């Protein structure tokens, strides 16, 4: 997932794709958020009432199906996405990563390329 929420449709398309794959009985072990895709993980997003809530949709889907939502640490740091540990380590007074997302390295992407049968990229 390579693009941010609302700005590009990629986060929506990926969500519908993953839902369909799960409904068909496929396994989706991990979604890796890279580039502006890391912005999907912010729990501070407040979309208008009549719009979908992209972060919540992902968090709920992940909880229901045990998907590992990984946010790339390098991409996230640049763009101001931090979890509590990272915030403390960087001396920042706040953090903004939503439940269900975890911060880790690019190796988590490569690992999936090695272990899974298919890898699909959504982005801009």
């Amino acid at each position, binding site marked *: 997932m*390579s693009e941010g929420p609302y700005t590009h449709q990629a986060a929506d*398309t990926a969500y519908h*794709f993953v839902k*369909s794959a799960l409904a068909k009985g496929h396994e989706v072990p991990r979604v890796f958020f890279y580039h502006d895709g890391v912005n999907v993980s912010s729990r501070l997003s407040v979309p208008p009432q009549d719009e979908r809530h992209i972060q919540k949709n992902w968090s709920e889907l992940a909880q229901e199906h045990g998907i590992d939502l990984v946010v790339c640490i390098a991409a996230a740091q640049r763009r101001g996405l931090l979890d509590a540990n990272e915030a403390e380590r960087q001396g920042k007074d706040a953090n903004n990563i939503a439940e269900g997302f975890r911060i880790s390295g690019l190796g988590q992407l490569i690992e999936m390329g090695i272990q899974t049968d*298919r890898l699909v990229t959504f982005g801009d």
Partner: protein
Amino acid sequence: MSTLHTVNKSPFTNGALLSCLKHCKPGDAVLLIEDGVYGALAGSSVAGAVSDSLEDVTLYVLGGDASARGLDDGKVLSGAKTVGYDGFVDLVVDHARTQAWL
């Protein structure tokens, strides 16, 4: 084994679709998603180039994206096949790899 290519940009603004078609192997599939669905418009300035490639390549259009943009079946190139998100999943399974033309 063949490749599923995805294209998500309008071919009138961005060169991704034409570049993709030039790199397809016979038997590959191209799935138009998001703004990429405009690539299936009949009668457009790129329709000829797209149609020509359909000899070797199967063209799919993500139906939800086409409907969102007011592209009904009458406006879509004959030969293009409409699929849903579940059809998208099947295409990924049925091809050895998926290449996104971002």
